[in-house]
């Protein structure tokens, strides 16, 4: 088990009802963490076009998660 911090943005913040949370997880990747958090936040849907960052660096869904990481979940972006 390791402790990680999670931040939700835009639509994800609305769907989870929280801006950030800290939890203990066995997830080894952001993808697994997102799937685990769907249990805690049942309004969350598929993450098809979503992006993820770890510690303020754009990341992959399969990157390794380390204790103390802050994982930022970005719903599909719509700038420009």
């Amino acid at each position, binding site marked *: 088990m390791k402790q990680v911090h999670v931040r939700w943005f835009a*639509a994800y913040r609305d769907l989870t009802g929280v801006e950030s949370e800290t939890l203990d997880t066995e997830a080894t990747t952001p993808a697994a963490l997102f799937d685990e958090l769907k249990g805690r936040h049942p309004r969350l*849907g598929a993450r098809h076009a979503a992006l993820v960052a770890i510690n303020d660096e754009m990341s992959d869904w399969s990157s390794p998660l380390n204790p103390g990481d802050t994982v*930022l979940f970005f*719903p*599909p972006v*719509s*700038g420009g």
Partner: protein
Amino acid sequence: MNDTPLFQVSATPIDIPAIRQAMLDTDCGAYAQFEGWIRNKNDGRAVDRLEYEVYEPLAVAEGLRIIEEAMQRFKLKRAMVVHRSGLLELGDSAVVVAATSPHRDEAFKGCRYIIDEVKVRLPIWKKEHYASGEREWVNCQECENPRN
């Protein structure tokens, strides 16, 4: 060369003449500028206004990366982006991309590359406010579990 930041997030209306002034360069024969506007409809729905949420630390870092890529790939002399945050009204400028190069082809192509990448890579989200009173995050039809 002036020290105007190449990627900026602005909570107030974008000062477009200031961008042109910052880009002005007598080595260059071409200045291309793209401006994105707030349109009065999207997907057949009447839009009243919209708001942009920007996660600034990463938007700036990734925005600078895109500018660097464009400068290298298209041999631009300089490129710059200003993106709005907050509440915008119809006709407001949402984003301005500017590029200079000795000749027009590179300036056009560089400008196009930057806006295309900005739209898919930067942590920026648009919430549309419709004439009907509803509000919706754009591109997020699948964000919510359909079983709810």
